[in-house]
């Protein structure tokens, strides 16, 4: 598979802000970068919540703070208020800002849209991390990568 992601299958967060922070904490980036990315993602959510098909939220942005497409997947059995709708699956992704434009970002948006369109119902019912990543066309990022 082309895309790698980190995953937390048992998110503890009870709010959108906390869930974004919990997923950002999985990335190997500095605290300040994490803080600025959380702010950018929050702004994006403020102007339109990123909740899509079957209780899935897709917080995302492009940023100069990262140098490669960075993806984190989270699952919450209890659900997370986003804030009007409860979501159970969160796919957070941040694309780098490159000289050649947002091609990679557009490509990943297309990839994730197609996965949700094809497997949205299954994604909502998964019971295992590997199954979730597989349905999203992602593979688990190896530690230290």
């Amino acid at each position: 598979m082309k895309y790698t992601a980190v995953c937390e299958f048992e998110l503890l967060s009870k709010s959108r802000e906390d869930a974004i922070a919990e997923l950002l904490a999985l990335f190997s980036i500095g605290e300040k970068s994490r803080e600025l990315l959380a702010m950018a993602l929050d702004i994006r959510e403020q102007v339109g919540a990123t909740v899509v098909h079957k209780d899935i939220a897709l917080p995302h942005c492009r940023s100069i703070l990262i140098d490669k497409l960075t993806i984190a997947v989270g699952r919450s059995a209890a659900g997370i208020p986003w804030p009007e709708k409860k979501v159970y699956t969160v796919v957070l992704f941040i694309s780098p800002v490159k000289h050649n434009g947002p091609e990679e970002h557009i490509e990943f948006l297309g990839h994730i849209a197609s996965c949700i369109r094809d497997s949205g119902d299954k994604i909502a019912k998964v019971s295992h991390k590997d199954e979730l990543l597989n349905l999203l066309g992602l593979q688990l990022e190896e530690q230290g990568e």
Partner: protein
Amino acid sequence: MDKQLEKLISLHDLDVMIADLNRKEIRDREVDMGLHTEGALEELKGLRDNYCKSINRKWRGLYNQLTRHYGNAVVPALVGRCTGCLTRLPTAVCSDPERNLKIHTCPTCGRIIYWAD
């Protein structure tokens, strides 16, 4: 990190967000995913205007000037180089552990530089 530098990085990310929502390909993909983008662009522009007011006039002016000229005003330094123009940056600045505590600009292109933490 210098507070003004943080704000300039965030302003840059906000401008990228606005540019992205202005692109038809991205808007179409977002709609395809089931997201609603109506009104988001205007709201982002409003947030940007307000955010700009919190940035020192000197840095805001430089940011706008660089954005008009290059399209991007803030770039990370990577292996001692400005990633905007690839100029090698002064070693003394790059090796300073407190390099992000003030705003540095590239000696060649003038872009605002930060070091990823």
